[in-house]
């Protein structure tokens, strides 16, 4: 037996391993949807409504069809057999509008797809869009959710004049008793504005119909290739095994590609009709108008407490701007907010009402954090307002109310079981990093000098690793397959299709450690329904905690089989496996993984009751969610002249359970914080009263750029999750969830001595400057 392979003792998990994805990305050789070319490929461009609400009286495509190169125009009348755009969320009494892939007789928001032009050339298709004449009769529209609830407001859907899509109630404990016995009650209206996800790669689809095989392949920039396959197959009336979905390189999603869009089914329809491959690439303006938005909350909070700062109970009336339709998870997002409304605190009395409201706007849905940033922003603002009212230090009041380390697993008033935690640990660490007491002294000194300096704390908790299937709309498990080739090289296939998170690296780390082999001998594949048997996807900070665990369990099965083959080859009943070799514990003889793999496929001799080959698949069902947490501190200074906020320091201490790769975890924290900062300071999707999207392009919508972002000091505590054997919790959304309250608390703190108690996001210079004027704090 050969013993040439060196014993490998180092492990990869926990190390700053460079990403396997990066070489193709830094050389411009990665393949995104728009990089796909096919012989005979046609191009589609979409006619969209310029009105927020209108009746379609007629469509005349004659001039478009006369344009050389245009091969077809399809309208709502042509796609009647295509099923509706699906909503995967179900709530009692939910009103679900019929959502055709092209408008029938009415349009409901600016950007609503009305017709599709197909041409041999991309630019011909785009130009011919302007030649499709749609006769609209404009109707009154409503874009503001509170206005939509007023009597007499225009009805988005005529069949439901009150614009209410659903109401939802959640309570725990006895909130009336808590409020009756409280020494202090603070109230505040808090908004989480509409945001535009703005993945740098817009959506795009290539559809390839092979009539001879009756088979359709859809290349789509999606986070959920398998769910997309199931749902688009249903929409198109195709047998699911005749549809293959490929998510090639995906240029960011942030939730916006956790969806099934009209255009995805529409391109399948077009390809089947014209018998040629067809490509559609969304323009940035379409992306802003017709890809889901995020957030869109108006929240009325009441918090009851004792004078010592002990929180007793919370009431919330939550108004969710849904937009005109339900996309895949639209109505479910605010239910996540109420689930997480207690945050990291012990109080057991909660009373929440949600009103889901239709507006003449593009639908809202999951955007990085999806419901949890809204909850965290609300509770963390309310805790600061309470602290201000009671003149208690912001760190102190949090510590007083934290769930204590010995209370885990902790049952919340909203029915969750927090898995593990030590909430004071990241707070203490963050306070130490910023040197809190000195910072407060410096702030006092700055005030004496007339400068406006604020210190803001947020201690967030989030729900991640979606999730147990009974609590997740489409199943919450994930698949992992491990395939060892006859030569001993390893392929891991995951159903958690990533789009920038780096799972090709982290899952390879897990596999390399378990098999004791070099990480370069592991390849991770994903994003193709023809390669991965089934899967759910990457969203909700779930990929490593659920998908990584599935890979881990597949590896355990495989290791058993490796041991069985090893024992046979070594003719021993007492073997162990380490560092890529199976070793006889008596003789010390060993065989390498490559030798075992070769023997398993050659199958000259098989161990009893053992199949040839080394392949294992696990569909792992998580027993619970995971609950990461952390503490973020922002130090800000306001320019009195302009109202501009500058973030002087940003410290993030996150606990995402066990860390597989600190390099990637810190990257996720950076990115999350930047997006949270974007919401806190800059971003807002604005519809005017008539439902026109005023922020329709990057000129008008302020995505953070390099000059707008501070250095982020990232640190961690590690509290393993008991939910999975890796001990991981998830980190993709943490930064977004922690950041907005830290920054807003900081800015309000900077103004608190002037009597400012609250400011709604975004804290633009104008908003802050006006506040300063109103509170006599002008320069």
């Amino acid at each position, binding site marked *: 037996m050969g013993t040439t392979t060196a014993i490998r003792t180092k492990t990869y998990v926990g190390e700053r391993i*460079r990403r396997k994805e*990066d070489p193709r990305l*830094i*050389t411009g050789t990665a393949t995104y949807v728009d990089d796909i070319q096919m012989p005979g490929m046609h191009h589609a461009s979409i006619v969209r409504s310029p009105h927020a609400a209108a009746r379609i009286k007629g469509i005349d495509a004659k001039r478009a069809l006369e344009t050389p190169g245009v091969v077809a125009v399809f309208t709502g009348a042509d796609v009647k057999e295509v099923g509706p755009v699906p909503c995967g969320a179900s709530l009692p009494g939910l009103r679900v509008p019929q959502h055709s892939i092209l408008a029938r007789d009415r349009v409901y928001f600016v950007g609503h797809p009305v017709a599709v032009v197909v041409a041999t050339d991309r630019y011909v298709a785009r130009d011919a869009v302007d030649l499709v004449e749609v006769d609209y009769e404009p109707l009154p529209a409503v874009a503001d959710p509170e206005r939509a609830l007023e009597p007499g407001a225009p009805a988005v859907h005529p069949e439901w004049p009150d614009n209410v899509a659903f109401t939802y109630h959640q309570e725990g404990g006895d909130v009336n008793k808590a409020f009756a016995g409280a020494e202090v009650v603070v109230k505040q209206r808090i908004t989480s504005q509409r945001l535009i996800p703005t993945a740098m790669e817009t959506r795009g689809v290539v559809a390839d119909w092979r009539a001879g095989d009756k088979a359709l392949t859809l290349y789509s920039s999606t986070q959920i290739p398998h769910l997309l396959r199931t749902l688009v197959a249903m929409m198109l009336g195709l047998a699911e095994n005749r549809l293959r979905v490929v998510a090639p*390189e995906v240029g960011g999603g942030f939730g916006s590609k956790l969806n099934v869009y009209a255009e995805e089914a529409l391109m399948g329809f077009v390809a089947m009709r014209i018998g040629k491959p067809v490509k559609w690439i969304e323009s940035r303006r379409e992306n802003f108008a017709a890809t889901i938005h995020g957030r869109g909350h108006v929240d009325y909070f009441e918090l009851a407490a004792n004078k010592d700062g002990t929180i007793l109970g919370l009431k919330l009336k939550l108004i969710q701007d849904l937009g005109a339709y339900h996309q895949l998870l639209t109505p479910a997002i605010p239910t996540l907010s109420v689930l997480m409304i207690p945050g990291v605190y012990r109080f057991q009395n909660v009373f929440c009402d949600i009103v889901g409201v239709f507006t003449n706007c593009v639908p809202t849905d999951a955007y990085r954090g999806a419901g949890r940033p809204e909850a965290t922003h609300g509770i963390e603002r309310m805790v600061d307002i309470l602290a201000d009212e009671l003149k208690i230090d912001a760190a102190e009041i949090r510590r007083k109310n934290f769930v204590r380390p010995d209370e885990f697993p902790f049952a919340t008033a909203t029915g969750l079981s927090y898995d593990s935690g030590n909430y004071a640990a990241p707070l203490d660490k963050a306070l130490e990093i910023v040197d809190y007491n000195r910072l407060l002294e410096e702030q006092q000194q700055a005030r004496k000098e007339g400068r406006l300096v604020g210190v803001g704390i947020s201690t967030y908790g989030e729900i991640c690793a979606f999730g147990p299937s009974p609590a997740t709309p489409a199943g919450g498990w994930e698949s992992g397959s491990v395939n060892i080739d006859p030569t001993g090289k390893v392929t891991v296939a995951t159903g958690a299709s990533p789009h*920038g998170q780096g799972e090709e690296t982290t899952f390879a780390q897990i596999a390399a450690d378990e098999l004791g082999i070099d990480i370069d001998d592991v390849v991770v594949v994903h994003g193709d329904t023809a390669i991965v048997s089934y899967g759910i996807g990457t969203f909700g900070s779930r990929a490593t905690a659920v998908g990584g665990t599935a890979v881990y369990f597949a590896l355990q099965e495989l290791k058993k089989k490796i041991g069985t083959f090893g024992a046979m080859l070594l003719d021993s009943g007492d073997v162990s496996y380490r560092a890529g070799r199976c070793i006889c514990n008596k003789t010390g003889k060993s065989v390498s993984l490559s030798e075992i793999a070769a023997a398993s496929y050659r199958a000259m001799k098989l161990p009893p009751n053992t199949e040839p080959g080394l392949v294992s698949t696990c569909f792992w069902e998580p027993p619970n969610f995971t609950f990461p947490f952390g503490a973020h501190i922002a130090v800000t200074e306001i320019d009195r002249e302009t109202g501009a906020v500058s973030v002087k320091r940003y410290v993030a201490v996150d606990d995402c359970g066990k860390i597989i790769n600190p390099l990637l975890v810190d990257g996720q924290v*950076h990115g999350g914080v930047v997006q949270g900062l974007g919401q806190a300071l800059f971003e807002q999707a604005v519809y005017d009263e008539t439902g026109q999207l005023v922020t329709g392009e990057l000129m008008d919508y302020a995505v*953070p750029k*390099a000059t707008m972002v501070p250095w982020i000091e990232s640190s961690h505590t590690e509290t393993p999750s008991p939910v999975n054997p890796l001990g991981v919790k998830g980190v993709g959304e943490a930064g977004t969830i922690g950041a907005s309250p830290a920054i807003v608390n900081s800015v309000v703190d900077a103004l608190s001595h002037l009597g400012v108690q609250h400011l709604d996001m975004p804290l633009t210079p104008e908003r802050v400057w006006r506040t300063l004027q109103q509170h006599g704090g002008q320069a």
Partner: protein
Amino acid sequence: MPRVKSLHVNGRAHRLDVDAGRSLLSVLREELELTGAKYGCGEGQCGACTVLVDGVAVRSCVTHAGAVAGKRITTIEGLEQNGRLHPLQEAFLATDALQCGYCTPGMIMAGAALLRKKPDPSEAEIVAGLNGNICRCGTYPRIVQAVRLAAKAGGGRARD
């Protein structure tokens, strides 16, 4: 409309025949099969399409092919020299200054142009130099690190 019959891209002349008014981005991607430069907005607002023209960063989505005929164009595909990555590409690897990677080619080209102009830029100069490029994954802190690292490695002297 006049035609453009030749473009000098990544060190060599490419014969083609395109409308001079077409965007350089679409010519690179669709005629020359250089898909490294990306469409992000088509309006010069995001920087995903950044390439170098005579060593200066330009937005290829709002640059007409006719405006760059006869000039030296460098795309992300042409940054590697003799099988060696540009120091800024190496620095992006070392700092993991990317996530989804879509803005990365444009970001690297903007950084390479900055280093040509300022071989040893200050942090403020780096931040200002990259301010036309959006990274929605929010990797700015590491991109700044990467440019500093590349500057130390002599990235400003690299040919393009």
